[in-house]
């Protein structure tokens, strides 16, 4: 029988540890990881307020399950996975108001973008406009450092489907540079 909540990544669960010193250590860990978690959530949600809610909720869940985390080396993937699940859960439990991203980006100007060079900003804009099914695995791979197999497990997809999504994501970004996209005859994604 599992002794940890269902929203805690099973693959990261390690033997329990408790105590005030452990709590203080985990608090410091959470604080140190928070900017990275927020960045991850921002790329997923494309909304700062939403991302902050997601991270806050994720850290609460992580705190409640802190006994499951013994090895700090596990913490990054563990927390990123909880953030991703919290973001997915948000969409499950309430239907968010949808906006046209093109319009929003145009009206908000650089509100979602940073101030440095325009080429990278154009790429950020393109990434933000990728559909979530392509953006999510790309962010998990490049930003989160997850392997294809880990992404497949997390998204409940086959590894082949993840490869296809990653390929298509980069193919769309490739087009941004005026490069010829590789032919995509992958068809539908392989089922799990």
């Amino acid at each position, binding site marked *: 029988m599992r002794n940890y909540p269902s929203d805690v990544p099973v*693959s*990261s669960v390690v033997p329990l540890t408790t105590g005030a010193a452990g709590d203080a250590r985990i608090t410091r860990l959470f604080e140190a990881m928070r*900017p990275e978690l*927020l*960045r991850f959530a*921002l*790329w997923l949600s*494309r909304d*700062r307020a939403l991302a902050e809610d997601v991270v806050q909720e994720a850290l609460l869940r992580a705190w409640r399950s802190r006994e499951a985390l013994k*090895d700090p*080396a*596990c913490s*990054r*993937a563990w927390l990123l996975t909880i953030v991703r699940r919290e973001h997915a859960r948000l969409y499950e439990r309430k239907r968010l108001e949808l906006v046209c991203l093109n319009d929003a*980006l*145009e009206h908000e*100007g*650089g*509100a*979602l*973008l*940073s*101030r*440095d060079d*325009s*080429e*990278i*900003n*154009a*790429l*950020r*804009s393109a*990434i*933000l406009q990728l559909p979530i099914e392509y953006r999510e695995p*790309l*962010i998990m*791979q*490049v*930003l*989160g*450092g*997850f392997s*294809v197999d880990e992404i497949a497990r997390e998204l409940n997809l086959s590894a082949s489907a*993840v*490869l*296809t999504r*990653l*390929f*298509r994501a*980069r*193919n769309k*970004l*490739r087009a*941004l*540079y*005026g*490069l010829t996209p*590789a*032919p995509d005859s*992958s068809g539908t994604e392989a089922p799990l």
Partner: protein
Amino acid sequence: MICHDARRFIGAEPCATSRELALHLQECHACGEYQLEMVALDANIRRALEEPPVAAAARRRLGARPKWALAASLLLAVMATLAVWALRTDASLAHEVVAHVVAEPQSWAGTDPVSEAALAGVLRRSGVILDAAAPYSVVYARSCWFRGHYVPHLVVRTTHTLATVLILRDETVEVRQAFHEDGLSGVIVPSAHGSIAVLAATGAHLDDIAAQMQLAMRSPTALR
């Protein structure tokens, strides 16, 4: 492997490789160029994602940058990559080792031991065998393109820390080199099979790790 499969594989994981892909790239110049473009693109994607999409004061219209300018900048990136490649003999091996490790930060996130089959696969691609009695748990193993060759890029867990090990069969150093760069400490030591680079973020016993890895390496002549 055919070009379509190779490009799908590269598009999904630009820096990953497999024996089949390596063989295909040896024969297919176009796919090699495609990989180079995708690696350059991926570096920009990483750069784009490394900063959160934060609020900016300045308003601007998005997508105003002409495509030709983006294509030109990517071309410049590819040319720069090629220039670095062409001049690699002048560059510091240690510097390139550090740059490679820094560019693969996910290597430090591994916690579970890599399966024996996966590790053997990575080593086999580079013609290396590690003794099963190797003293460290390998938590990351990937065959990486480095200075014109695929080299095993491993992260091992010692008693005290994680350490990166690059087995550089095609790089010869006369004497031990120690370096500190980008917060990493490292050594490159001569080996019977080229050289071995060991890096760690903390003051680990790098020479001990290098020595242990050397002992664990077996003669690869049968594989060459």
